């Protein structure tokens, strides 16, 4: 099976052709298998992230033919083009810098009062949002996240020095951050004050972008539109409940 792997070394981009050798006659390898074999047989220092091989750790996301996929659970196909996700700056080869995303939440909901009865059950939606593996596939096509990069992606900005430094946390939000905020709000331990702080944080990250957006898509199938965006918009008053 022939694929193309896009490498990034010290600022240089290269397209490397690789021919995957099947290990079993009927093998339908995952993209991660292709990368592991490429590293073993032809690009010894190929950089890519992975961890669990089982769609749990969320770190192996790459773009396959321009769309974010979880490499350990995406079947490779003849002619696939494998590159780092376009929505984040590249650290090396297929490794994107993820740190600017979660960093924007650092300490943001700390120190608020909490209810103290630990023996309470959380609502189903709380668990539905906890299913997020932090794969960042949802950054794709998110206009709010794109605000960090003049409305495009880091890949399209040629002057890399002008990119915002992820080490400071991104100024504008994304579906993942909103999910974390909404999850916090659904937690039965969160007080009214916490509810409000959550909405304020969502607003400050640019929640208004969601009013004119067709909506986000999650890599593991969480219903972000209904379970995250809609309630946040309603409670922030950006969208009246009647409109839906």
């Amino acid at each position, binding site marked *: 099976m022939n694929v193309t792997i896009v490498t990034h*070394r*010290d600022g240089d981009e290269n397209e490397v052709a690789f021919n995957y050798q099947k290990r*079993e006659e009927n*093998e*339908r*390898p*995952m993209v*991660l*298998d292709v990368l592991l074999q490429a590293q*073993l047989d032809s690009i*010894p*220092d190929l*950089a890519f992230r*992975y*961890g669990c*091989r*089982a*769609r*749990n*750790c*969320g*770190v192996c*996301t790459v773009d396959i033919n321009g769309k974010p*996929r979880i490499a350990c*659970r*995406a*079947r490779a196909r003849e002619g696939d083009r494998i590159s780092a996700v376009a929505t984040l700056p590249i*650290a*090396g*080869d297929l*490794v994107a*810098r*993820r*740190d600017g995303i*979660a960093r924007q939440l*650092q*300490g943001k909901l*700390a*120190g608020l009062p909490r209810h103290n009865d*630990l*023996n309470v*059950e959380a609502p189903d939606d709380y*668990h*539905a949002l*906890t*299913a*997020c*593996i*932090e*794969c960042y596939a949802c950054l794709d096509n998110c206009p709010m996240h794109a605000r960090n990069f003049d409305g495009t992606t880091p890949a399209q900005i040629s002057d890399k020095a002008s990119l915002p430094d992820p*080490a400071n946390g991104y100024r504008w939000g994304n579906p993942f951050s909103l999910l974390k905020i909404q999850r*916090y709000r659904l*937690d*039965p331990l969160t007080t009214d004050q916490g509810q409000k702080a959550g909405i304020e944080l969502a607003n400050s990250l640019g929640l208004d972008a969601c009013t004119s957006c067709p909506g986000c*898509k*999650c*890599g*593991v*199938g969480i*219903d972000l539109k209904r379970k995250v965006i809609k309630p946040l918009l309603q409670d922030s008053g950006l969208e009246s409940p009647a409109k839906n």
Partner: protein
Amino acid sequence: MSIDTEWLDYDVLVVGSGGAGSHAARAASEAGAKVLVLSKDPIGCSDTKISEGIATVRQCSADDDSEQTLSENLRMAGADLPLSKITDAFATDSIDAYDQYRINGLRPPIDAERQTPQALPLPMGGHNRRRSVGHANSGIAFGHASCDAVIANGGIDYLEDNWFIDLVKAPADDNHPAGEVIGGISYDAARGCLVAIRAPSVIIAAGGLSTLYFPKTDTMRGNTGDSYAIAARAGAELVDMEQVQFLPFCLTSPPSYEGLLCGEPVTASFLGVLRDNNGKVILDGVYLRTRAECSAAIMRAVEDGRGSPNGGAWLDMTANKTPPRSGPYFMKFLQTALPSAYRNARQAMGKAAARCDDAWEVRPGAHYHMGGIRVDENGAGVAGSGDGETKSGVSGLYAAGQAMGGLFGANRLGSTSLTEVAVFGSRAGIAAARHAQSTSVSDHLKDLFDSAIHNTGTHFGKPGKTSAAKLRQELQQASWRTIGPLRSADKLAEFAADIERWQTELNDVPIPAYGSWNQSFIDFQELRNMLDTASAVCAAALQRDCSVGGHVRLDGKDVSLFSTPYSTVVHRTAHGAFDSRRTLRTRTPIKRALTYKVQEKHARLKASLLRLMPATLQDKHLEKRYRAIMGASGATAMMPGGTEAATADAGNV
């Protein structure tokens, strides 16, 4: 040298951001320390996050589950290798430590009557009480808790994509016979620089070593033995390093799924058995067995030439599912008890296996390391004879979680590690914060950092011809054969010689000069850690010449109930080899041990009788038992976001 160095000052440096690291960071920060967390994976991405998410909560099903009961349970399961002050600490703190997860957002199902987290229907293998609690979304829920503890709740500094390389230590003096930690050096791959961190306390919470056996493992890629290698290079002692836990039921094929977890002994339920390739039963009463017993049974069949095509055995659960009344309950149990393991099984082996019409081909996989850095009950490094003394250990060095040894000895019971990381992460955090309050790193020690920085920096821009990936694969294949589930003196000696050769070849791995995400440098460092760790395991495995727990010697007897138990202790010599010795442990009084054995035998006898019952009677009896443990409707399952809707793994199965 082409790479820059950033200097930082902290009270407590925590290496690792899984369960142990995040609890340690929170506890140290709450105790008033200025804390930095380093993590080579993104924050929270760790074994903790990919686990089955089942935790031990004492007294969640029965009031008589005393501290003593739990502590003794751990020690007996661990063949008396665990230290009682460490198992006592586990039992004493377990409830409160688990609650720290809840404070960080973990929401278990609640037993409304008892006002405690809801226990799973069956005790997990080897537990003498029902005290394991499952969680919606398995380990991912724990991943969120780790992440939130470090990031969202504030007050803690952190750096991810950051590989901790080595500790920096002030030389030994009268007060610090093994020297004193003054900080360490790390490589920040994302920012392309080295970081020199001055800190009087360092907590190693960097996980285990199972990547030595890749792909025959279900753990995270990052388990390259960094914890043990880094501590050993700084002069710390390691305990029970031969005790690697292999989970018996991991997948063998297709290649993408090789090594992933598909079940636990309890999965086999009342009637599941293990068969060799000729269909002969090699282990019955599987649900009552420890992980070590099941793994050994499979591997002995393989060694004997009766293994399955991919070097394992067959887990046959057909007898559970066929009976008309109890069968449906079993299927529900199978699907809900370990949801992500079942998902792996279904995707890898297909529908007939998922329905249990076909037996499952299973093979052990490396899962956890019981041994580790030798510490006291607060995670502080110890050394010396007996149980070891804190004042003889490396001062300022702490370990928690899978990095530490002394808690589980020869065998770890299921669901205990997620609690372990909370208990000892918190303890180490508090102890490290206290230590930092009474110590400071003086400026005149800068030279020591300068030479560590220099040594690390010289690797950038190094020529060579050896592929790190190939070398790693060679080591991994050899590890499975020699320090894997079946060992012998001959195999170990051969392995020790190979390690020496690989150590030399490692210096021939080329490393380019650029700083930003230099994968060759990362591979070099991880391989160096894997080799040091393999060396430590090999030395301990040679020292223990009989079989006990996770350590099975083909050329040695099983340890007897009457012999005096001992732990192995290894430490790294100036030449880089590992010296080993034994340290005696206290044996459980024979009377207690015999009672325990009799209880075990009794349970197994009952299980065999059950299998011999006439079919209809058996079916009725089992239906009653399933109903009693699961309720009439069967346990309720909560699965992560529906696979059908998943866009990122579209085109699967």
